[in-house]
């Protein structure tokens, strides 16, 4: 069972991992304003989604859940087998979380000078991502997972394919640039087309509407009096 929000990129990651391995699961849509007892007892520390419940036992934190999924269902491995390659995959996942995901979140809910600072950090992080994409990807190797198959890093970075544009629009900044990030944009195009991923992408207008509300709420702005 997976507890989630439709708009959460962290929940989407876990869904991608489950679908990649062909694991059947029940999805429970939580209400952000009225969290279920199950959610609050399954994740009492953070009270957040995603939470995976396997045979009744709860696991929280998207990256922890994905590693659990990979270790429990052995088919279609998400992480590489070799310990050094695994370390590299974990390193990049960590970089993405600390520098791309975190900075994007912070840019979304800030403004003025604060936001400028976050956008600058985000741009620098994207330069590093482009560098890594240039180094690892080519016509034969479409994904960071190697070859034609997505892997851990792809799944962790995948939220950028749908949410980055949305957050740029809502936050009023620009970080994506096909000219300075050609390999990254190629990767995004390929990721979006992966058969089990394509149907999961939420419509942009729906996401924009939701995140606009979220930003206004966080900034304490009043939409319409």
């Amino acid at each position, binding site marked *: 069972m997976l507890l989630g929000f439709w708009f959460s990129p962290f929940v989407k990651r876990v869904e991608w991992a489950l679908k990649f391995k062909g694991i059947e699961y029940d999805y429970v849509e939580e209400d952000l304003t009225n969290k279920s007892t199950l959610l609050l007892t399954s994740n009492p*520390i953070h009270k957040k989604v995603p939470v995976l419940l396997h045979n009744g036992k709860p696991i929280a*934190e998207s*990256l*922890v859940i994905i590693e659990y999924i990979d270790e429990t269902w052995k088919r279609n491995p998400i992480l590489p087998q070799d*310990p*050094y390659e*695994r*370390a590299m995959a974990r390193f990049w996942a960590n970089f993405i979380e600390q520098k791309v995901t975190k900075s994007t979140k912070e840019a979304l809910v800030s403004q003025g000078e604060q936001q400028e600072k976050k956008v600058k950090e985000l741009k620098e992080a994207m330069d590093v991502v482009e560098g890594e994409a240039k180094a690892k990807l080519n016509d034969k190797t479409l994904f960071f997972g190697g070859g034609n198959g997505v892997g851990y890093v792809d799944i962790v970075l995948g939220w950028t394919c749908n949410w980055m544009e949305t957050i740029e629009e809502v936050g009023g900044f620009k970080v994506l640039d096909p000219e300075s990030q050609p390999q990254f944009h190629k990767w995004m195009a390929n990721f979006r087309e992966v058969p089990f991923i394509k149907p999961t992408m939420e419509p942009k207008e729906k996401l924009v509407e939701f995140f606009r509300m979220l930003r206004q709420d966080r900034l304490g702005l009043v939409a319409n009096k």
Partner: protein
Amino acid sequence: MGEEVKLFRSWSSPFALRIVWALEIKGIEYEAVFEDLSNKSPLLLQYNPVHKKVPILVHNGRPIAESFVILEYIDETWKQVPLLPEDPYERAMARFWAKFCDDKVLTSIWSAFIKQGKEQEEALVAAAENLKFLEKEMKGKKFFGGERIGYVDIVLGWLANLVSIFEEIVGLKIVDERKFPLLYSWMQDFAEAPIIRDNCPPRDKMIVKFKALLDAAIASSSSSSK
């Protein structure tokens, strides 16, 4: 076998110390390369161009950075004295707690040390809430790993020696023995474990270092509020 293991560290980095402890616990031979972080070596910058930090583990010429990533690599490469549990669910729990320790416990306790006034008060409240969760998780075990030191103990280990240093410098109690008896006794047991005790930076040097950091933080915050 021709194994070559090098650890780039500084004398005081609590993150590098995690790797020292892991290598020592597993009895892995390694060469420690001490870095002066105010004057980073070309080799450090070459091995960790993204973050330019320690720790970096170099195994047979291949570098790995980020303490959690290194710990998992060590556990997967040298199978003796496992740090993570075998069961996938228990492993997930260990990884969850390790993340909680760094994201919440470390952040709030660091803020409680380095900030002043209202920010410090708020940090102390947050720290206490986070410590409550840890206290509950101990539930009668000697270590988070069970009978012996494991992954979560190593990740949280900085608590055992840094907290009393912070408390001495700012004159505040952060981990109150009466409120957190299990955690407090964990801190004693951990600090007294031979491998940990023999691999801790000198206390007096640490006090000097962190006092200087605090003084610098106070100076910069008072000059920016002018």
